[in-house]
C-alpha cells in the first residue's frame, strides 16, 4: 500500500535531503571546473528562497495553514538588515539575530489575529498583513521608498568583510539552509509536530484530546517567521539591495508555488521546488519575453498530474521499483 501524503509527512525522507545537500556542496567546485561562474550566485539566491519556502512548508504543509503573506517576512528580515547596515550597525552578529527576532515578533503578533480565522479568511488576512508591510516599505523615504535601498556594503563578521567572498557567502547560505532543514525535520517528527499535523487533519479531535491548537499553530507560525527572517537577512546581503518588491504578494504566491511544486509537507521538496521553480523561470525568461504565459500553465499541469509534487513522484517511483522486485 502506498502511504498517504499525511503518513509520509509524519516521516520526512532524509535521503533526498542528504543528496540535495551533497550536490549543493559541490556546486562551487563544479562552477570552477566548468567555468560557469554565474552558478554560484544563482544557486545562492535559489537557496535563499528555498529556505523561505521550507519555512512556509512548516505552516502550509504540516500545519495546513495557507499563509499568503510569507514574502512579507522575507521583506522584514531584509529591511531590518538593510537599515542596520545603512545606519552603520551592519555586523552579522547583530543583523542576523535581530532580523530573525523582528520577524518572529511580527509572525507572533499577526498570528494572534490571523490564526483565529480559518480557510479563505485566513488567506485574506495573511495577504492583508503582507500588503501592509509592502506599503510600509514603500513609505520608508529615508530608506529609498518605492525605489528600494542600495546597501553600501554587506554585513561584516566581527568587523571583517568575510561575506564579500562569493564562495564564503555561498557556504554560509548552504549551512543556514541545511541547519533549518534539519531543524524542521526534527520538529515535524517531534511531539509538537505530530500535534500540528494532527490538527491539520482534525482540529476538533486534537482539541478534544486536550491540545490548545491555537497555541501550537502560533508557535509553528512564529518559528516559521523566524526562519523566513533568516532568508531575508541573506537576501539583503546577497543582492546588496532591499526593495518593497521583496514583500509583494506575487513573491508570496511564488513561495506557495515552490512548496506545491516540491510536494506539500515534504520539506526537502520545498527546496527542490524552489530550484525547479527558479531554474524554470530563469530558462523560460531567456527564451521569450512572455515566459509567464508558458510558466503558469506548465506548473498547474505538473501539479495536477504528479498529485503531490516532485517528492510524491519520487515516492511513487520508489514504490513501483519496490513492487517490481517483490
Amino acid at each position: 500500500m502506498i502511504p498517504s501524503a499525511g503518513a509520509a509527512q509524519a516521516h520526512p525522507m532524509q535521503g533526498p535531503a542528504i543528496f540535495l545537500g551533497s550536490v549543493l556542496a559541490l556546486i562551487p567546485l563544479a562552477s570552477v571546473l566548468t567555468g560557469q561562474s554565474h552558478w554560484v550566485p544563482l544557486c545562492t539566491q535559489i537557496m535563499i528562497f528555498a529556505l523561505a519556502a521550507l519555512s512556509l512548508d512548516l505552516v502550509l504543509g504540516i500545519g495546513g495553514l495557507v499563509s499568503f503573506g510569507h514574502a512579507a517576512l522575507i521583506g522584514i528580515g531584509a529591511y531590518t538588515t538593510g537599515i542596520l547596515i545603512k545606519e552603520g550597525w551592519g555586523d552579522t552578529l547583530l543583523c542576523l539575530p535581530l532580523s530573525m527576532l523582528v520577524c518572529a515578533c511580527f509572525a507572533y503578533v499577526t498570528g494572534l489575529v490571523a490564526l483565529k480565522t480559518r480557510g479563505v479568511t485566513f488567506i485574506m488576512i495573511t495577504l492583508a498583513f503582507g500588503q501592509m508591510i509592502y506599503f510600509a516599505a514603500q513609505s520608508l523615504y529615508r530608506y529609498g521608498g518605492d525605489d528600494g535601498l542600495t546597501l553600501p556594503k554587506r554585513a561584516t563578521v566581527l568587523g571583517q568583510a568575510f561575506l564579500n567572498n562569493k564562495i564564503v557567502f555561498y557556504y554560509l547560505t548552504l549551512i543556514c539552509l541545511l541547519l533549518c532543514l534539519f531543524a524542521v525535520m526534527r520538529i515535524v517528527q517531534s511531539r509538537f509536530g505530530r500535534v500540528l499535523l494532527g490538527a491539520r487533519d482534525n482540529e476538533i479531535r486534537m482539541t478534544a484530546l486536550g491540545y490548545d491548537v491555537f497555541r501550537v499553530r502560533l508557535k509553528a507560525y512564529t518559528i516559521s517567521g523566524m526562519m523566513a527572517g533568516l532568508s531575508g537577512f541573506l537576501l539583503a546581503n546577497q543582492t546588496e539591495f532591499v526593495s518593497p518588491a521583496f514583500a509583494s504578494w506575487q513573491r508570496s504566491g511564488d513561495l506557495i508555488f515552490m512548496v506545491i511544486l516540491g510536494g506539500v509537507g515534504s520539506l526537502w521538496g520545498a527546496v527542490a521546488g524552489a530550484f525547479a521553480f527558479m531554474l524554470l523561470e530563469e530558462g523560460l525568461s531567456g527564451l521569450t519575453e512572455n515566459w509567464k504565459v508558458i510558466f503558469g500553465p506548465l506548473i498547474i499541469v505538473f501539479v495536477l498530474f504528479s498529485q503531490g509534487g516532485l517528492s510524491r513522484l519520487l515516492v511513487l517511483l520508489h514504490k513501483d521499483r519496490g513492487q517490481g522486485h517483490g
Partner: protein
Amino acid sequence: MADPILSVRNLQKHYGAICVTNHVSLDVMPDEIHAVIGPNGAGKTTLIHQITGHLKPDGGSLVYDGQNIANLPMQRRARMGLVRTFQITSIVGSLTVLDNVALAVQSIAHNPLDLWANAYQDKALNDQALVYLDQVGLAERHSVEARHLSHGEKRALEIAMALALKPKLLLLDEPMAGMGHDETQRLLSLLQRFKGQIAMLLVEHDMDAVFSLADRVSVLVDGEVIACATPALVRQDPRVRAAYLGDGDV
C-alpha cells in the same frame, strides 16, 4: 453520599426559536454509568457538546469535580479528565492507529509538546498506546493508517483514545452505533470492566446495552428531561413508554 462528579443545572440552549436544551438538570456520580436516551433530535448530542465546551450554553451552570467549568475551553476540560467520544467518528485519518492513541497518551504525559525528540519512536508512549489498543481489540491493526479502518474499528479506536486520556468522566455519544454484534459485545464488556472506576454519561440507542450497563437513565424528549430513574423504573414509566420506547416494545 459522595458529591457528583458532574452536576448540570438548568442548562439552556436555543437555536433560533427552537429550544434544544430546556432547563436540563442532571448529576453523574463518580462511580455511576448514567445513560441518556431519547428520540433522534431530542438534544442529546447538543447536551454533550455543552458539557465538553464544544458549544456555549445560553444559560445554566456546569460543575465538574467541584469546579465551575462553564467558561473553560474544551482542551482545558479534556485535561481535567472530562473526555468524550463523538457520534460521528473523529480520528486523525492520515496517521496510524498507534499514532492516534499515542497522541492521546502524549497529551497527559510530561512535556506533551516537546519540539525535538522523535515522538513516533518514543517507546514509552507507544507501549502505553498498545495497551489501550489491546483493550479494544485493535492491537494487531496498530500500523494501519486510521482512515483504512472499518467503521466499527474506528469507533473502537476512539474508545481507546478516550481511555488513554485517563478520564474521570467519560461522555459516550452513541458508541455502539454502526458496530457489528461482536464489536458491540466487546465494547459492552469493556465498559462493564471500567464501571465503578470511570464515571460515564452514555448516550445510546441500543436498549440492551443501556439496560445492562446503566445505573440510572435520564430520558430526554424535545430538549427536556422527562424522567430520571433506575432502568427498571424508567422501563415502566408510562410517559417514557409513550414518548420514546413505544408500548409493547420493551
